[in-house]
């Protein structure tokens, strides 16, 4: 059966890649053909991922939590132990689903826009999507990394060509940071490989078995974990390595920002949860204290910085950085509950961040401004957009009913068991995010129509949200609600995978780790 299921993973990974490559030589005037081909590339992975998410069976007879495993030797297996290996477990399934859903939403949004050189724009987006699907489906850590790079490179190009104000500097800063982070984590991954000379493979499942059998409590393991933590951390905008993110996203075209902030950024977190922490639990516990302090920096320091933003897109960017702090805290517990909460929040944040980026662009299209102090009263002309924006804000600030709530709440509960004093500053985030989130809503949509909006709308009549914006927004909201209203369906699958990785390391972790 695995071969049957795994063929669908190939579809999800390679259909976007092939359609993307097909679009590259297309004639720029053949807009409708371009759009139809792109649509196929966006829809297929989404359908596959949804089908997997619902058809996912939690445990098989052998107790193996990976499903749909497959492996293709590309000629490097004998030499280096590298093969194209795909498979999904309860941890990667939510991420795979996230990539599929956000991919479709950002794709539809991009199709509906009239970007110049649309074929190139969509092609790059499709290649990015292919890389994302591949990253989360890979069970080979080489390809896990390879697909990440495949998704990353189009981001820079897209910012460079279609970006907004200050795109050069933003793209450069982002490129430097992300390349640096990726390089460090690559070194870490290779160090992992080097520490298992007996099996000599990049196969994650084999590596997990090997490390769990041998323990790996060495200085080398310690340093490996540090490489992975900071490498991945830079990619996730761990404080104080975050400054690329808000400005980069502010400059990025919306679809690229949606896919990057929503999905690609989760690569680092996913790497920590799926690779670093289960392989090197003891080394991991040495770094917990550092991680907690930095994560609190993400929540509290960045939280306050977010409050100070007057530019909507920068605010959304900083808010997305801030929420990474909760996920890091969930990872810091090294427990099933904490990791589970982290994955739930990654899933939720991916959707809500994408939604926020998309809707802020929609606001910009109507007001031609990102300045929060200049806006006001947009709700009268665009009530439906206001409704969507409020829903997105509520999701973002963790209102129950949206998936974000379960992520944050689970993390707080899990964290309290080990570091109760960390929960106090961490939970101030729920107030901070409400302050800036609601202020943005009030400034943009409520109150009287501002002077600058009046002036602008005289020449550009304001319309409410269009179909091309509404459909992606609804897709994202439905996914947020599906997990938010009944989280169990995702939680059960997560638990089955996490119990395997984290039930035991928890017991051997040294007990003297605590934060003062």
């Amino acid at each position, binding site marked *: 059966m695995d071969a049957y299921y795994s063929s669908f993973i190939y579809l999800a990974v390679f259909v976007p890649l092939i359609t993307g490559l097909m679009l590259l030589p297309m004639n720029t005037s053949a807009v409708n053909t371009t759009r139809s081909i792109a649509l196929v590339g966006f829809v297929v992975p989404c359908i596959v991922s949804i089908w997997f998410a619902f058809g996912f069976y939690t445990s098989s007879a052998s107790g193996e939590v990976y499903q749909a495993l497959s492996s293709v030797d590309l000629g490097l297996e004998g030499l280096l132990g590298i093969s194209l290996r795909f498979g999904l477990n309860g941890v990667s399934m939510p991420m795979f689903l996230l990539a599929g859903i956000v991919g479709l939403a950002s794709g539809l949004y991009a199709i509906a826009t009239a970007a110049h050189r649309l074929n190139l724009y969509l092609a790059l987006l499709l290649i990015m999507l292919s890389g994302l699907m591949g990253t989360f489906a890979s069970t080979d850590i080489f390809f896990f990394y390879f697909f990440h790079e495949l998704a990353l490179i189009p981001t820079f190009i897209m910012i460079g060509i279609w970006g907004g104000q200050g795109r050069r500097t933003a793209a450069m800063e982002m490129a430097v940071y992300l390349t640096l982070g990726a390089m460090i984590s690559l070194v870490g991954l290779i160090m992992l490989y080097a520490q298992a000379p007996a099996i000599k493979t990049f196969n994650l499942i084999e590596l997990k078995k090997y490390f769990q059998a041998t323990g790996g409590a060495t200085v080398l393991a310690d340093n490996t974990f540090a490489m992975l933590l900071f490498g991945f951390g830079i990619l996730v905008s761990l404080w104080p390595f975050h400054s690329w993110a808000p400005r980069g996203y502010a400059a990025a075209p919306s679809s690229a920002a949606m896919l990057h902030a929503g999905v690609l950024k989760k690569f680092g977190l996913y790497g920590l949860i799926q690779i670093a922490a289960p392989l090197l639990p003891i080394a991991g516990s040495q770094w917990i204290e550092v991680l907690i302090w930095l994560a609190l920096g993400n929540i509290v320091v960045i939280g306050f910085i977010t409050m100070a933003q007057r530019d909507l897109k920068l605010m959304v960017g900083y808010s997305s950085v801030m929420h990474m702090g909760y996920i890091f805290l969930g990872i810091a517990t090294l427990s099933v509950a904490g990791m589970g909460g982290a994955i739930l929040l990654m899933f939720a944040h991916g959707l809500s961040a994408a939604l926020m980026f998309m809707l802020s662009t929609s606001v910009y299209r109507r007001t031609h401004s990102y300045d929060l102090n200049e806006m006001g009263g947009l709700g009268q002309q665009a009530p439906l957009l206001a409704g969507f924006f409020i829903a997105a804000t509520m999701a973002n600030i963790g209102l129950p009913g949206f998936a974000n709530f379960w992520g944050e709440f689970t993390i707080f509960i899990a964290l309290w*068991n080990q570091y109760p004093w960390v929960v106090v500053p961490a939970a101030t985030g729920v107030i901070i995010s409400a302050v800036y989130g609601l202020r943005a809503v009030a400034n943009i949509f409520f109150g009287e129509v501002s002077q600058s909006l009046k002036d602008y709308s005289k020449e550009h009549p304001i319309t409410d949200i269009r179909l091309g914006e509404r459909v992606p927004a609804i897709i994202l909201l439905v996914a947020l609600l599906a997990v938010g209203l009944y989280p*169990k369906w995702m939680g059960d699958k997560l*638990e089955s995978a996490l119990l395997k990785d984290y039930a035991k390391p928890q017991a051997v972790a040294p007990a003297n780790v605590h934060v003062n």
Partner: protein
Amino acid sequence: MDWTKVFLSILLLPLVAALVNMLFLRRNGTTAALVSITAAFFSMVLAMIALFKCTERYSVSFPWLSLGDFQASMGIYYNPMTATMLFVVTFVGFLIHVFSVGYMSDDPAKGRFFTGLSIFMFSMLGIVLADNLIMMFVFWELVGFSSYMLIAHYWNTEEARSACKKAFIMNRIGDFGMLLGIAWTYWHYKTVNLQALEVFSSQPGFVIHGGIALLLICGFIGKSAQFPLHTWLPDAMAGPTPVSALIHAATMVAAGIYFLCRIFCILDAQTLEVIVWLGSGMVVYAGICAFAQTDIKKILAYSTLSQLGYMAAAVGLGFPGLALFHTTTHAFFKALLFLGSGSVIHACHHEQDIFKMGGLFKKMPLTTALFAIGTIALCGVMFTSGYFSKDAIIEVAYFKNTPVFILLILGAFLTAGYMGRLFYVAFLGSPKSQNSEHAHESGFFMLVSLVVLAGMSLIGGYTQGWAPFARQLVSGELDTVHHQIVSLQAEGLFSVLGILPWAIGFAIALLFYGIGAKKDALQNHLPSVYSFVNQKLWFDEIYGFYVRNVQQRFADILNFCDVVLVGGLLVRGTAGLVGVVGMMARSLHVGNIHIYVYWFLAGLIIYWSFAMGYF
């Protein structure tokens, strides 16, 4: 009967109505109203069936999320408290739905309004039914959201814009403490299930953790708008009047009290002491603040704060049943008063200043009579519902805590004072503006709700008539109070105390303000006192100062550091250093052969001098 299905229907009907309205009936306000009212009606009928037929405690639970140590569930825990609250919420809720049909008839955004009301009903009923703290927290936040949404109904006004934000954030601050309390409860007591907590706490050797109790009551302080988070409630009057009646008077703010009663078993003596003082302090503070208000709804809002203080004091004194008793009667008469004021505001073309009304008893006799019933019930005039519930709390204070007793008596006196002022100025005398001149009696939908609520305000206090299961909530505590009073031989005292505060209050208000006054007498005769009262102890100013000058400054400083230090020096600095080295290197390669020869010679000299040992 399958009670699970009944309770789930009570809970989910409003949600279905909200979804239908939101998805299909945004532009069709009249149909949306019908959908919401139907849902509220059937919820009410089912709640009444449960009230009379489901006469045993009932609980059911469904697992909702399981991740290792973390187990969350959703469930229903039905006991006398639940039965009473279910009835109150659905009954008052239904009447307010009916009233809204009349009140909102010419509002263009009716669809949105009724969606909001239905979401609110769903969330509130979730709190009432919840069997564990996590579920309660979920719905707790949701009522906060529905309150936000409904306060923001007139979203193009500046008032609503800041009021909705303020209400949500103030509630979030309370929820922050509650969240920590729940996390602590989860690990300390190893359960968040209310029934399990009740069972544990009755076991010998069980010690209540005071820290947990203090954190949990933060939720109550936010939701019930108690000190120091009370400032959002008066501002919340920016919402439509039916919303003020339903959410900001009868049900949501009372959810805080209900929460305290639900977790009463894990509140320790010190925490109860805190609650008593918060409550009785608020009784007097809000009572005084009400005197400086001229907006009819704000007077009632301060009155709500004051009455919530009575309820809190009852919980703090160890009588949660009496607190819920007062919650129930208060829901009837305060909803009546708010809807009555709504009827007035509607008639006076959205005029809310009482000094611009006057003479309404001629124009709207029925509304005036019903408002008068609400007023006497609120002031605790004999044999109305407020008399029974409020006096029971005062009696408890008499034998439990004398200073609190004095505060509560003072509160009763103040209540009659500000309500007397409101009634004499707004309803009696002659019209003081065009708007009140042209006032006319309200329509059927509005009046029918007022009549039913007035009836309940009169008879709701006779617990003999309550459903037996719900009566269990109060009968024991009422008997205890009665016996205490008898044993202290204080019946005579209380037959006097039941009359004096309101009689004096009404009389002084009449003498001081007079009938149909055009100007506020306090402002005329004692302007300094009036302005002091009007400042409300500067809470808004202090919070405003904090937000503008502390929080925002701090945020700006951090932002500056982030842009300059992290973004500028570290990142640009590193990039800049590389750039400078590159520039220097580039300046050497200018493509001019002479320069290269000089560089070659200079290098040769340096090399030579190094080789000769000059360096």
